[in-house]
């Protein structure tokens, strides 16, 4: 249940719709399904098998494979920590919207309201004024993450028993409302109609793989950590399928909610859906479409709005604490620092780093960092995982381990996917996307900014990972 909670989060209701919109709606769904079945589910089984076999945090698991590979474990736990820094900013927006929903403060112009709420400067270069509601949201969310985590994994189980089903029910209610809006069918048509010419664009494929990695919490050490807590006889393969399909199913559903409202907005504006781009493209899409759907509910809109944003927060909180848990477990495992202390340190550092998004440039910085972390960081870590676990460690042993305790037996096809297909696809996609990003910088941003906000965090993660591997606990011999 905790793993479902981690996988199903804002990645489904916030990230999937806007990535889908940016990559041509229906054009994105085919690569998404291909990525889910060729990389998502096989890697989910792989991470579950490693965690269950190693019975430790990702750095410990990779160290068990070979001492020199410990850095890869640290990379996998640092990556979700970096994601958490901006992910919790999105949650703080949700927190503010939960308050705003009491009187539906966004009014009829949800798009305009979102920009004025953030004090958007329109560019990532100008920091602008500080948004106090965002700072307040950050304090609240980071504090909740700390509260849930400091007592350890037992508390997580209790939290997710509530935070997984409630938001799903509310999402279904909003989807029904969205589908009954005038113009909804145009939005759904844009969402579902495949555009086969887009299948030749490497960026669309990379975005699909990245979305699967982000949403399923893969290449982030999260599933390795959770699998280490599973009972010895837990069915790994079945769990991997359930989590992956529940996650993709939630994304698919959220697409209907958002795109039905996009169709409505397009009809109201009297322009085509593609032309709405400048208004609604990017991380702000859901903060325009969901409030619009809420305002249009026939009764008790404020009540449903309030409940919906609580639900969105609870959706996110499962993923947020799962992003901090692996690094806390890693520190706790290596240096024997108490879990509470490790969690407090990481939450403190995370909060300070989140403050860089509280200005009017926050929306754009989130967009750049998310683009590079998900599209390049997670995909690179996924590639490294496949290479180390597929080629250095005997993959067959992991398959036998999974088959021993699982009802569904995985065949050699899985080994072929992890050893050859997934690494080859990820490598080619990375190369093609790097080339495209060099010839055409992301969103036309200046190069120095892309290096500073997009590439530097990735280099820092690798540098810290190697440093953490070198720093040995006092009692451990060299």
């Amino acid at each position, binding site marked *: 249940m905790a793993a479902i909670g981690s996988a199903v989060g804002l990645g489904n209701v916030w990230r999937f719709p806007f990535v889908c919109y940016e990559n041509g709606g*229906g054009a994105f*769904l085919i690569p998404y399904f291909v990525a889910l079945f060729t990389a998502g589910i096989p890697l989910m089984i792989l991470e579950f098998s490693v965690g269950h076999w190693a019975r430790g945090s990702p750095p410990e698991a990779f160290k068990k494979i070979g001492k020199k590979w410990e850095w890869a474990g640290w990379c996998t736990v640092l990556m979700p920590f970096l994601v958490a820094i901006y992910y919790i900013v999105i949650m703080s927006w949700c927190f503010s919207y939960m308050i705003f929903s009491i009187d539906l403060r966004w009014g009829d112009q949800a798009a305009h309201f979102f920009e004025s709420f953030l004090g958007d400067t329109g560019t990532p270069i100008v920091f602008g004024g500080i948004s106090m509601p965002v700072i307040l949201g950050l304090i609240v969310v980071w504090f909740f993450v700390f509260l849930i985590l400091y007592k350890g994994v037992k508390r997580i189980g209790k939290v997710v028993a509530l935070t997984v089903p409630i938001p799903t029910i509310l999402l279904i209610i909003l989807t029904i409302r969205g589908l009954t809006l005038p113009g909804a069918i145009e939005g759904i048509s844009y*969402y*579902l109609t495949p555009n086969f010419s887009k299948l030749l664009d490497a960026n669309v494929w990379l975005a699909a793989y990245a979305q699967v990695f982000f949403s399923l919490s893969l290449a982030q050490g999260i599933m390795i950590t959770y699998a280490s807590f599973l009972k010895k006889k837990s069915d790994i393969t079945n769990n991997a399928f*359930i989590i992956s*399909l*529940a996650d*993709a199913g939630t994304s698919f559903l959220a697409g209907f909610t958002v795109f039905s409202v996009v169709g409505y907005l397009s009809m109201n504006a009297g322009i085509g859906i593609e032309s709405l781009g400048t208004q609604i493209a990017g991380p702000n899409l859901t903060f325009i479409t969901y409030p619009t759907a809420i305002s249009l509910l026939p009764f008790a809109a404020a009540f449903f709005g309030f409940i919906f944003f609580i639900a969105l927060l609870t959706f996110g909180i499962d993923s947020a604490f799962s992003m901090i848990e692996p690094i806390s477990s890693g520190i706790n495992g290596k240096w024997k620092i108490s879990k509470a202390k490790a969690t407090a340190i990481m939450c403190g550092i995370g909060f300070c780093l989140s403050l860089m998004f509280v200005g009017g440039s926050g929306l754009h910085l989130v967009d750049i960092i998310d683009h590079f972390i998900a599209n390049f960081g997670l995909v690179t870590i996924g590639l490294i995982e496949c290479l180390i676990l597929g080629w250095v460690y005997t993959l067959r042993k992991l398959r036998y381990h999974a088959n021993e305790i699982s*009802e569904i037996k995985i065949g050699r096809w899985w080994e072929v996917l992890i050893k050859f297909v997934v690494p080859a696809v990820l490598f080619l996609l990375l190369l093609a996307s790097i080339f495209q990003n060099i010839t055409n910088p992301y969103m036309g941003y200046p190069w120095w900014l892309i290096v500073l906000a997009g590439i530097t965090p990735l280099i820092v993660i690798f540098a810290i990972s190697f440093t953490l591997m070198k720093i040995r606990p006092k009692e451990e011999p060299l």
Partner: protein
Amino acid sequence: MSLPLSAIIMLIFGCIVLYGGLAYFIYRAFKGKNK
């Protein structure tokens, strides 16, 4: 306006694969538990 055929196919495919698959694996999990 009605949905184009390719969109309807995508809708059916998504629903069967994702929700049908999910229901199937949950069923297997319950079946395994009761054994």
